[in-house]
């Protein structure tokens, strides 16, 4: 169970170019942090590095004493632009698969669908969903299998104002239950959160 996330002096590079260095952050249970920065500053890369998908150049990523391999295997969710949903499969098939894959089951998938009002859409194929509906389906995975750390990459962009607010409430509930949220954003998060701006190596030095 992840209770905290610590980044110490993290440096990341992409395609031979140093994105940033010396980035530190400490996030405790019930805390949220919004990552801001210009396009291409490395927000997505940082989330992928925390998820263990990209290697870090220098520094350390710690999960409060939890082994990083365990933390990544069962302690965190990543929700990005690319949702990994297959256009030809139905929303139900996709939600149930990802629920089981992340440690939930069919019942928890149904509960998540309820919370995001996906019930009438479940028998549709993913390709027939609108961008906002599709994002709600992707976000339903966060609720279908509870994992403490949410790594969100522009989670709100295709959602309308009403859904942004409701997803904000879901984030609030997650934090109240001891969860942690690290989100890359352009617009402010609908919840109280610290802000960490990523700046390039030249400016940060």
């Amino acid at each position: 169970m992840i209770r905290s996330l610590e980044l110490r002096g993290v440096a990341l590079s992409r395609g031979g170019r140093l994105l940033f260095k010396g980035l530190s952050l400490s996030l405790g249970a019930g805390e949220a942090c919004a990552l801001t920065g210009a396009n291409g500053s490395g927000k997505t890369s940082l989330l992928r590095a925390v998820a263990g998908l990209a290697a870090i150049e220098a520094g350390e990523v710690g999960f409060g004493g939890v082994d990083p391999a365990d933390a990544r295997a069962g302690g965190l969710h990543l929700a990005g632009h690319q949702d990994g949903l297959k256009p030809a499969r139905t929303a139900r098939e996709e939600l149930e698969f990802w629920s089981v894959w992340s440690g939930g089951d069919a019942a928890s998938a149904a509960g998540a669908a309820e919370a995001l009002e996906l019930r009438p859409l479940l028998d549709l194929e993913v390709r027939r969903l609108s961008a906002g509906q599709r994002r709600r389906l992707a976000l339903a995975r966060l609720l279908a299998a509870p994992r403490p750390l949410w790594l969100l990459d522009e989670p709100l962009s295709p959602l309308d104002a009403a859904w942004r607010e409701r997803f904000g409430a879901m984030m609030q509930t997650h934090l109240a239950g001891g969860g942690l949220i690290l989100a890359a954003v352009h617009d402010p998060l609908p919840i109280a959160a610290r802000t960490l701006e990523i700046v390039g190596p030249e400016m940060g030095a």
Partner: protein
Amino acid sequence: MSRFSTLLARETALAWGRGGGPMVSVGFYAGVATLLPLAIGPEPARLAAIAPGAAWVALALASLLSLDRLFERDYEDGALDHLTLSPVPLELTCAAKCFGQWLATGAPLALAAPVAAIALGAPLSLTPLILACALIGGLAFAFTGGIGAALSLGARRGGLLTAVIVLPLFTPPVIFGGGVLSAFLSGLPWTAGFVLLCAYALAFVALGPLFMAAACRNALS
């Protein structure tokens, strides 16, 4: 285990739908088997001499189809990211993908193989052996093919590249399978070749996923 079985079910379903799935592979296979007599001439004696070999090579080529999409879709749409965030090791995930590919295209192709061989003039008695060879060879094709598919992630012209990488890996199973069939037809002992084919398939079922997982991690990084 329930994670693995749901993954296998999903991968088989995806492979079934990917690029037309078994229909396209079997159709391609039938097409090649039709072109051969057109190019070589219809004399039965000539065709019968090459029938098992031709059926076998066409099978290897048909196995190449849709292979390049094995990892590419998941890589592009982000599903591969999510698949890594699980207690199931990526090696096992890769094995499930190859196994799903084999169930969805390898097995239907294996059913079509005896038909193609007989249509080209092979005797009926070859049926059980060519079916068994095609099933086991298909496993070898899927698991060696997966290596090529995973390595060409992130490349331009991935499909063609996959074929260029994979064809040398196909030579031993093509040799062993073709050898088994021709030895059987000439009344020679064929078990040695069959054992070698099984050994090759098993070796790559075991080793292939290690290379695929390494290639996927590299592509995702």
